[in-house]
């Protein structure tokens, strides 16, 4: 009886509250808690969604749903002939957010831009180490400490970046999350007060939404920033309901407890699509799932053996069973949505008989090997264990005995890097910035021991990779990368498994949400209809 009463009361309460809604609000069921709200020290997609893409803006911005860039805080820019000087003209009248904890007295200036980068770069700045042990991973990972020579404030609204060498991806790099522009005035104020840590807990930016509150591991609240230079958002309130389990997120969406969710489990997609209240947006993911041979160990050092093993695998069956159709067989190491993707390359056909013969011709008899399976589900490979089992069965048909091995996730990647690793290693990659180099570098000679799990160093490929980095001419780079893909396919250091689709289920009342190829979740321009 008591329980019934509780339910009834809860129901009643829900009805009463339903009538109270007047502000436009969107609830996003997100997958993990952000480490903090400073956009630069952390590198997780969930950190970016909660900080850089909501609260902050950058000099240049990726176009909604694309990998091309447009002016952001910078109105225009010029590049010197040697490609080493980028001069940006800043937009005038850009206001930092006014919050309970900060009231700006001035608009955005070149000083803010300089500070935003130098705090990640100059070790003598107190901001460099304001968070204990911060390595500014992204800034370092993109090579900025070596790339930047100096940042010059020309006048209030002009800032010049001087580089040590030309860098083709410099502009897209400035659209990345770590390059978000923060307020120097706010930083100075905190420095004076000696409360530096507040910088990442009570953020201030120039972005579409301003931070309101964060209940750790539970809820993040934002509201539209009235003074946003891009125009006030249609939503009044944006709420992130942190929900780590994918199945629970799906239930919340169905129950109307959230309006949009990230990363549905492949098994839930059919059910979500069948729900008449929901739309399931989908997009080709900017990713690749692969299996890297150890090209330094016999018999995998022979191209014919690698090719034969590739031909033994029925990729379509894997895509149907593991990706549940939400993917496509991968031919090249870069996804088809990426510029310079070489459409003319044909995949090695699925042909067990030919594979068997090729192995025999290569003198390989009674081969037994290991297949490595990741212990986690990733966007580019939702079930590595199952993939490994299917490859194992396919291999058996051509007389190759395979044993599946797996380790805890961090250990897995560490062991995979060993130069004498035994067996073929499953992994994958999701792009950062839409540049082909951001995929192909995985196979570069200098990535051995880091991200090159094929331990493959091919001179021809490496030369192309370097040539592609040295020019800014897109037509020329396209040609170079098309060639690089040919070399890759000929040499077959990987079994390219699949490019997976990414899904974004949402309530039908959500309008204007564009999926982002880089996997970012952006809510500027989104609205809800009643």
């Amino acid at each position, binding site marked *: 009886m008591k329980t019934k009463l509780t339910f009834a009361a809860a129901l009643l309460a829900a009805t009463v509250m339903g009538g109270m809604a007047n502000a436009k609000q969107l609830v996003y069921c997100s997958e993990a808690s952000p480490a903090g709200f400073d956009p630069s020290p952390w590198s997780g997609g969930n950190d970016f969604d909660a900080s850089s893409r909501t609260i902050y803006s950058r000099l240049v911005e990726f176009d909604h749903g694309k990998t091309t860039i447009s002016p952001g805080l910078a109105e225009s820019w010029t590049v010197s002939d040697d490609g080493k000087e980028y001069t940006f003209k800043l937009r005038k009248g850009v206001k930092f957010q006014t919050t309970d904890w900060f009231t700006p007295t001035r608009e955005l200036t070149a000083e803010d831009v300089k500070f935003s980068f130098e705090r990640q770069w100059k070790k003598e700045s107190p901001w460099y180490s304001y968070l204990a*042990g911060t390595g500014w991973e992204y800034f370092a990972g993109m090579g900025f400490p070596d790339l930047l020579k100096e940042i010059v404030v020309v006048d209030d609204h002009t800032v010049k970046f001087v580089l040590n060498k030309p860098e083709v991806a410099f502009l897209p790099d400035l659209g990345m999350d770590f390059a978000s522009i923060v307020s120097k005035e706010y930083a100075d104020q905190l420095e004076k007060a000696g409360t530096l840590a507040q910088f990442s807990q009570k953020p201030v930016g120039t972005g579409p939404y301003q931070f309101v509150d964060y209940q750790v591991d539970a809820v993040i609240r934002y509201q539209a920033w009235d003074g946003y230079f891009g125009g006030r958002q249609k939503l009044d309130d944006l709420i992130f309901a942190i929900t780590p389990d994918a199945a629970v997120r799906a239930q919340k969406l169905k129950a109307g407890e959230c309006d949009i969710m990230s990363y549905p489990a492949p098994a839930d997609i059919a059910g979500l699509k069948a729900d008449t209240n929901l739309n399931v947006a989908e997009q080709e993911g900017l990713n690749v799932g692969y299996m890297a041979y150890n090209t330094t160990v016999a018999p995998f050092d022979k191209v014919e053996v690698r090719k034969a093993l590739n031909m033994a695998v029925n990729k379509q069956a894997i895509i149907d069973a593991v990706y549940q159709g939400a993917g496509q067989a991968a031919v090249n190491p870069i996804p088809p949505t990426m510029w310079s993707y070489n459409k003319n390359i044909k995949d090695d056909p699925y042909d067990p008989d030919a594979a068997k013969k090729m192995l025999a011709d290569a003198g390989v008899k009674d081969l037994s090997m290991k297949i490595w399976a990741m212990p986690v589900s990733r966007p580019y490979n939702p079930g590595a264990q199952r993939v490994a089992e299917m490859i194992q069965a396919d291999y058996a048909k051509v007389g190759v005995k395979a044993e599946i091995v797996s380790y805890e996730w961090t250990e897995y990647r560490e062991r995979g890097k060993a130069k004498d690793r035994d067996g073929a290693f499953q992994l994958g990659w999701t792009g950062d910035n839409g540049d082909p180099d951001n995929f192909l570098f995985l196979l570069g000679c200098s990535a051995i021991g880091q991200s090159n799990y094929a331990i493959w160093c091919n001179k021809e490929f490496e030369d192309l990779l370097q040539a592609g980095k040295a020019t800014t001419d897109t037509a020329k780079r396209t040609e170079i990368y098309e060639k690089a893909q040919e070399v890759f396919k000929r040499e077959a250091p990987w079994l390219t498994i699949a490019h997976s689709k990414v899904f974004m289920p949402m309530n039908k009342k959500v309008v204007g949400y564009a999926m982002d190829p880089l996997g970012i979740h952006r809510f500027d321009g989104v609205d809800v209809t009643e």
Partner: protein
Amino acid sequence: MFRYLLHKLALIVPTIFGISLAAFAFVRLLPGDPILAMAGERGVSPERYAELIERFGFNRPYIVQYYEYIIRVLGGDFGISLSTKRPVFGEFMTLFPATLELALVAMIIAILIGIPAGIFAAVKRGSWFDQATMGVALTGYSMPIFWWGLLLIIFFSGYLGWTPVSGRIGLQFFFKPVTGFMLIDSLLSGRPGAFWSALSHLILPSIVLATIPLAVIARQTRSAMLEVLGEDYVRTARAKGLSPRRIIGLHAFRNALIPVITTIGLQVGTLMAGAILTETIFSWPGIGKWMIDAIGKRDYAVVQSGLLIIALIVMAVNLVVDVLYAVINPRIRVQ
């Protein structure tokens, strides 16, 4: 009594050191380290790796690291989280009330249902009620919590729509936490409907978390009661012509209570373990989910200090149980 307490306290000191050492070693025995965990598929260059290891001080001898850790803890400093850069103790205090609230409600459910069910099963030994109760208890005890939680969500929240799916309170209620206990804070907020919203959010997770302790308590109560009911003094009481209610309620139950209380004390550990899964599935912002995240990220500071704090709490609860035990059973005090 005082000596008894002193004796128990004296045992705690070496235990704490043992646990701190185990926690310190355990997280370092895990493959990988915080830097590799952070790097992901991108990997990290050997130079950069060396630099970061140096910065965090992970390259120093373990004995030095442990010594510094212990000295800091004794000074009340539990360190700074490697991933969020916030003080570990502060994070713990923010999240612990949520776990405590959930665990208390779960424990109340487990006791209020488990003990009467165990008594009835013992009294009606061999009856259908006894068999059904013990069958259900065995099922509950073997229930995989994750699956069970999801099942309840799908049925009660998805299909029937009676309870919210996850979270601690409806998102429309936004107020600053005062005590950290949502049931209390929602009342303090004065917002109509807030308390009911908080309560309705508690129902499913507390049932899920209560499942295993409930089963254990019911089974323990039943067997303790059976043992006591076979004692001579119960027979004597019966022969005296006392009413069954008096025999069971006063003579038998009080004596059967001792092992049951011990069991309840031990279930605190089970609750902590269960909280990890329950919190993850119900998006409950407590320390269980916090620990799981920290282990995944190899956040040494959070894991070693978090485990230590949790162990201290479990020990404190067990100490209280021991004292309670001595209050109920005078024989203990003498030993």
